[in-house]
């Protein structure tokens, strides 16, 4: 169990990245949704022991990670949003190095796991090539492979599918959901559907604060019967914006597909639709 209590972090430039964040995360996949600058990466880095919080604490299976960061690192797999690699090192050698640092001392076991991961991430054929010369997608898959090295009990992945094509993304999702049966996987993303598809629990973060937390279906269900949709002309949107909470507006065939949250039908022609996680997300942000 990963428990986050009243976590706050303010950077030296005055930005309040985290503001009294509290979360309890159990086994399974936990999605962290939020717009850019919401504090997702700050939260991830703080959990990954890469920075200290100004206030609050984090415990993982009752270990206070600020006091015993190494205990957490021993059980951690981390994929940051952006990363680079050493030049001139092959995928295999680099994974071997990282696996050693993760404590896989047995060479045979280490190599077995590395090969399995290379297969999983479809990099086996490229294992002898320099990672620095990999394309964006390959490098991202390498990042995933290294995060899965060892037997991490907590996996933190920050925007892991950025740069992956749909098929790779799919594959990665399958892998993650399989792994997450027994461990905690913390997935940060701004792709709502990822969370919807994969996560058993989720939180929405904005302005450094947790705005919403729960099971995706539960959160969606709260909006059942309250989301209305209609295609309207561009010029007609204004009165709705003034009188209703417009969750989203999407352009479709020159018209705006407006989704409105309302207890009653805003106007003739509006259809009550099944809410999505995206509706929850926008609703939460707008309320925050």
């Amino acid at each position, binding site marked *: 169990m990963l428990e986050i209590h009243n976590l706050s972090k303010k950077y030296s430039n005055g930005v309040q990245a985290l503001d009294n964040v509290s979360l309890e995360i159990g086994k399974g996949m936990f999605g962290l949704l939020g717009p850019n600058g919401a504090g997702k990466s700050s939260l991830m880095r703080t959990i990954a022991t890469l*920075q200290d919080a100004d206030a609050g604490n984090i415990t993982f299976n009752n270990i206070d990670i600020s006091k015993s960061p190494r205990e957490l690192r021993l059980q951690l797999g981390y994929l940051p949003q952006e990363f680079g690699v050493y030049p001139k090192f092959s995928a295999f050698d680099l994974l071997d190095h990282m696996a050693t640092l993760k404590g896989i001392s047995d060479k045979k076991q280490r190599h077995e796991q590395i090969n399995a991961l290379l297969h999983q991430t479809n990099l086996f054929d490229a294992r002898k090539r320099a990672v620095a010369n990999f394309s964006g997608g390959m490098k991202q898959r390498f990042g995933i492979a290294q995060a899965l090295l060892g037997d991490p009990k907590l996996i933190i992945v920050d925007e892991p599918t950025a740069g992956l094509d749909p098929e790779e993304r799919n594959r990665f999702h399958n892998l993650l959901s399989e792994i997450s049966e027994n461990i905690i996987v913390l997935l940060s993303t701004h792709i709502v559907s990822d969370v919807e598809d994969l996560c058993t629990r989720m939180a929405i973060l904005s302005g450094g604060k947790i705005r919403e937390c729960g099971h995706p279906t539960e959160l969606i269900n709260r909006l059942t019967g309250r989301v209305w949709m209609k295609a309207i002309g561009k010029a007609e949107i204004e009165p709705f914006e003034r009188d209703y909470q417009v969750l989203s507006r999407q352009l479709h065939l020159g018209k705006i597909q407006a989704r409105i949250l309302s207890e009653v039908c805003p106007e003739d022609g509006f259809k009550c639709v099944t809410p999505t996680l995206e509706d929850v997300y926008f609703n939460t942000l707008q309320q925050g």
Partner: protein
Amino acid sequence: MIGTYCNFEWQYHTKQLAFVITFAVFLFLGLILTFNFSSGDGGVHTNSPYLITFKFGLISWLVTFVIAAFCNRAVLRDLDSNMSELVLSTSITKKQLIISRFVGVLLSSILVMLAVPLGMMLDFILTSNAAASAASFKLFDYIWPFLVMIMPTVFFISSFLFFISVVTKSHIATYLAAVMLFGMYMFSSTFIGSPLLSGTGSVVASSGIQQLAALVDPYAVSAFLQQTEYWSTQEQNTLLVGLSGNFLINRLLWTVSGGALLWLAFTKFNMQKAYVHEKSADKEVGVDNVQLKGIIPSVACRVNDLKSVLSLIKIETNLLIKSKVFWIAMTVWVAFVSAEMLTVIAKFPFSSPALPTTAALIKRFQPDHLPTFGLLMLIFFSGEIFSREKNIGINYILHALPVKSLGFLFAKVVALSVIPVAMITLAIMASMVLQLLNGFYEFDLGVYASLYYFGLIPLAINGAICGFFQVIGNNRYVGLSLSCLFFAVFSTDLAIPLGMEHPLFHFEQFLPAPYTKFSGYETSFGAFSAYQLYWLACVALLLVGAGKIWARGNRTPYKNLTLVKLTDFKNISPIPVAVTCIALISGSWIFYQTNIAATYQPPSRIVANKIAYERTFAAFKDVPQPAVTAVTAELELMPKGRAYRLAGQMELVNQTSADISRILVGGALSAESEFEIIDAKIIDDNIHHHTAIFELNTPLKPNEKTTLNFSVNHRQSGFSNSRPVNTITQSHAFIFLDRYVLPTIGYQKKRTIVRPRLRKEHNLPAMPAMVKPEAAVAVDGSDLERQGDWITLDLTVAAPDDFTVAAPGKLVGLEKSSKGTIHHFTARQPIRNILPVAAGRYIGTEQIHSGVKTTVYSSPDSLRNVGRIHEAAANAIAHFSEIFGPYPYEELKIVEAPAFAGITIRGFAAPGMLLFGEQSIFSLDIRNLQDDKIFIDHVSRVVAREVARQWWGHSLAPANTDKYEGGGLFLETVARYAELLSLEKHQGRDIMLGWLGVEHDRYLSGRSGLSSPEVPLYRVQDHQNYLSQYKGVMALHALKETLGGDLVNGALKEVLEKHRYPNTPPISLDLIMALKKFTPLEKQNLIDEWFKATSFSEIGIDEAHILKIEGGKYKLELSVAAKKITTNGSETRETEHLTQDITVGIYNADRETIYEIRHNIALSGNRLTLILDEKPFEIVLDPYLAVIDLNRDNNRVRLE
């Protein structure tokens, strides 16, 4: 528009915090350098144009690294911050981009350098210095050198590094290019004889190479030194460096090169490609359709710190040695050390190539270049290695791994140590290749291996310190600046004003004593090791601290510092405890050995002690004191314990005409000593100065004797903060009994401050002026004070049985005893009180030359030149006996002294005994000399000179040279002259003249920058070697050429016979008188001109025309310029009249003489018309170097 861009660049550079810090550092340097220089003696003003220019040159190479940082910032910042595409997609053109970026670099660099003169001016305003040694303030003295010295340099360096940055797109390659520039500067300094390299000594290079050296130095320091080589004090104080000659060519060359490089940078810069890293992305590996292949095998994870650290070390090392820049750096290093080692063995006509022994070759880089270059590389690579993860962007992944912070840092420090390992290994390989190419196959692998101990450990420690500063700086440039500042303060004397003068604080100041074939590094091995252990423990502590505050992940370094304080004391780990214990124990041990077991004198106390000595005992300056006339002593050497004991008696005789009732006796300074005078009591025992005043129960009447008993015990540990002259190791002992061992009698001038400037600074009265030779005759008559004591000697030396002992006197007995073998030396006939004792595993080679038993004592590794040494000694004894009379001693011992004895290549003469350092005659390369007559045999030359001192110095010694002027003529001049005679006889006239040319130039450079006006030769004082050695030999040679060798030699012989011990010691006028006695009246003014005046000639051929005339003859019309410059210190006069006739030599194409005659140039007019039988090829004025000519280059003309 371009103005806006330039303005942006200017603001960009100058608004950085690093810029402000750099500016402050340069301002500080300007201030400090003035301070440092002014501590020297001198009539040269601290703000003289010469010194200002010199200091600019000194600092200008430092700015190179600043410019490298500016260039990297200007060229690579877009790449580093992923801004390239944004910048390049704006409307800026290539021209605007390049010009604005370069202008930014140039202006910022100039501004940084402007801090230097500002610092100097600030110092001028702030310190009292201004009043004491500076002239009035002249702004132009700063502006002009800045314009001609700094501006072209800064322009070239900026262009060059800008170009490198554009082409390589690599930070470190730009820094390496900066190191390479520094290498070029060091290399050319080696040939010019820069004062910066006075420690290593310059190479006697041909003028062609000097010309080249003056041109290849992009900083123009060499060209400046070349231009000002012969400048007098007055000229240094008034003249500005001139835009002429090599200096002008140098400035033009590098300015034009700078422009060309800038143009190249412009053409090489490609807006589309050149601004992004060229990376060949792999082809995307297609996603296969295979479904998930089962879950990932589970593994056992248990962190093994050792394995983690080893893996980190492996990867760090791999990254380092796989990088191009590392190999570029190593190539620069190998090229530099190879060039340095070549200077040891390079054969120029008058250079003194040494045998390429391992010790000789590594000496060329081990003591200075390896630490300096190593440190520079460590500083730069530490920036690279410590900020690598952050720069690459892998830090978040790695830092979230379960590896201790200390593990990461330790691996990086180890990787840094790979740099010195590679440097040492490559230098060894280069050295071996040089040995092989030279046909020298005796590789001393032990000596090579020792580099890994003595060279690597200090550098590894430096690396850890650089790493520490990278951690606390948390930014490559801040770390780099902090490292530079640390080493600038703690590796130099700058730490002393901060109260950290004890070697324990004085980082890395304890260097190993030089390697010696006699006992390796044993002299200071223990001390060196203890210091290294101490520093290792200290840096380990620093690293542990760094591990705690390291900005792991996204942290700011100092936030953790509070965490450490609050939480870590409870469960402190064993590593810091262990290293703290090691640091404390080793530090205490060093302190005990330095301050308690030995006598430690803080450097800052040295001057104070001297002042105190003078104040305490000044009253004894004029109190008559007895002379030592006999020494009977027993010396027991105990090499195993590195100790010796000396006990015995001295016979003291009142040789004055007054009664003596009080005697001032000084004991050994760095040893326990006791002494007593028979029938006398101590009335003042000054333990602080190891000096006591005895009062005799009955005053000593003239010619009465008394006895002083003494005993001295000394044990050495090698921890002393000064290198002792007298050293005993387990395998060798070298002790000058007369220096700091035997008690001294009377007031000791050498224990006081002698330098006039220092005396003035400490409000001490000026030293009494020396007695002019004329006054010496008038006042003292025949009662002249002798140079030193003349003693009879009875010395026994107990040494281990396998030791051979060499000491003055005759070996009269060898006897085994419980203390080892007792060697008994006696000198019944008085000898000068110069008593070196050398004992060790010598090989003695004995031969009889002209009836004189001659033994060469060398180490078993130095037998190569022994034959030549004997031959040279035989020649010298035979030749000089012919000229000066019989050899004055029964024996001649020629001894190889260990490196720690401080005997230079010049050698040292004791009574009947010559000492030469290891790098001297025993290791000079004389192979194949016979085959090539253009090379001088320095072994024979130096041996001849030192043998000559047995007559001139040890048979005759001048009146006390501390008191009377002119004594150097008998100690130095005649020995040099004898050397010249020997050169002419045994190596030929051409070699002799060639060597004299070197001495001629040495005189001219020696007189430049004098602290006081040059005195005439006959008034030479002790320290004025440029006169007694170089002008002196020119004078006697010129007289020999003009008046004849027999005349000069006859006069010398007469002086010797008349004034040898125990007769009255001579003064310089005696030599002049003797010379005049044999010289016709009309030529006597020549003697006066050489000895009693200071004058130079400036002769040269203006024009030479040749015309074929009837009868197959040739008419030569020669136009000659001649003038004489006479100076009396304050006033300089020029005349057209030369006292001396000038030889005009005309030679055919086969170098045979067609015509040679002496002309009085002034009398015969400046035009000469000569009818010659043969076609002339070359005309030379003064081919036999009979005048001192300020410019010899225009004395030679070849006719087409």
